[in-house]
């Protein structure tokens, strides 16, 4: 090696290494290695390590937050399902209640209609009875007025009441 160095320092061969170049490059490289190892590289190494740890921590935190969000979502979905179920139940219940009320109202309305119809019929019957009674009186009066005019004398009206009643009863029976 020494002989090569000595030869190179004096040789004119451009390929052979020159001693100055060997010494300075070795010196430069070893100084660089020493400085890098002691001064320049540790901060970078530490920084890269810290960043990796931070990224790992952030990823873990994000993963945890995601899991928590998933749990919350599952809870919310469960609550929403329960609420939907409850609302469906309430609607069904309200619908059933409404059906019952409706049926009751219809029943009561029908009963009222029947009752009203019955009352109306009774009123009609009573009115008819009253009219028939009045008509009987009027017919009897007319018949007696006519008879008095024909006979040219005053008749005892009360003595003819049974006859008139019997006549009206017969005519009523025959008209039925």
């Amino acid at each position: 090696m020494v002989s090569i160095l000595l030869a190179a320092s004096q040789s004119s061969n451009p390929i052979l290494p020159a001693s100055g170049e060997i010494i300075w490059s070795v010196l430069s490289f070893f100084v660089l290695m020493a400085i890098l190892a002691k001064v320049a590289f540790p901060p970078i190494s530490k920084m890269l390590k810290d960043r990796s740890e931070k990224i790992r921590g952030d990823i873990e935190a994000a993963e945890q937050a995601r899991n928590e969000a998933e749990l919350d979502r599952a809870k919310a979905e469960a609550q929403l399902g329960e609420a939907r179920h409850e609302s469906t139940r309430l609607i069904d219940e309200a619908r059933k209640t409404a059906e019952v009320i409706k049926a009751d109202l219809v029943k009561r309305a029908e009963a009222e209609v029947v009752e009203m119809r019955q009352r109306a019929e009774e009123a009609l019957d009573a009115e008819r009875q009253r009219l028939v009674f009045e008509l009987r009186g009027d017919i009897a009066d007319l018949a007696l007025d006519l008879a008095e005019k024909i006979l040219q004398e005053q008749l005892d009206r009360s003595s003819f009441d049974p006859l008139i009643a019997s006549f009206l009863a017969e005519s009523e029976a025959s008209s039925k």
Partner: protein
Amino acid sequence: MSILGAVNFPPIGEVLNWKPFFLGGSALAFNKVTLTAVLATAITFLLFYAAGKKKALVPTGVQNVVEAGVDFITNSIVLDIMGPDGLVWLPYLCGLFFFILINNLFEVVPVFQMPSTARMGVTLPLAITVWVTFIVVGIKKQGFASYFKHSVVPSGVPGALLILLVPLEILSTFLVRPFALAIRLFGNMLAGHLLLITFAALSEAMFAKSISLVLLPLPFAMLTVLTGYEIFVSALQAFIFTILTAVYIGESMAGSH
């Protein structure tokens, strides 16, 4: 012919053997090559120092460049080849990579235009450093006898073949490796340097002959393309040197064969 005759191609000695700035004639002669080596050391240190000082959570600028380099060496070289045990060698491999890369890049830096790695005086000591390192690591990890046995005696090979293979393994592991490392880097950078000189000299000759409008674009375009290519080669050769270092040290740590 007249154009070629006008090409002022400098003698090979002139583009490789630079005259000393000072300490000329002594063993410590300081020339352009040694200056680039020293500057590469200073720049590498400043890059790492500046990057380490910024400590920003989101890296930018110099910090980004250095961190990208360290990250690349960590993942693509150390973890891939040596595994997690190799992380102790990360500062050494980062220093080696950046030192070679910056030395190489001086090839395309105006005024300098000379990679110190185009000189055996720079690549050979680097290769010898690697050689010593992987042998020392091997002996330390496996013990002297075990390391040399594992290094030169391939396992599972018939005894008769060992007569042939053992000398080959000795040759390849302990002699060829350092020289291959040194000559690969030196040869690639020297070839690139000479190519750039060739096209620069050709462009200059064309320009001087006043026919630049017709012919200058071709050599000048080649010079431009090759400059870009040499930047790529600079990074590639730094990567190759570093990855081979990692392979050799990794083998020594684990026990090859």
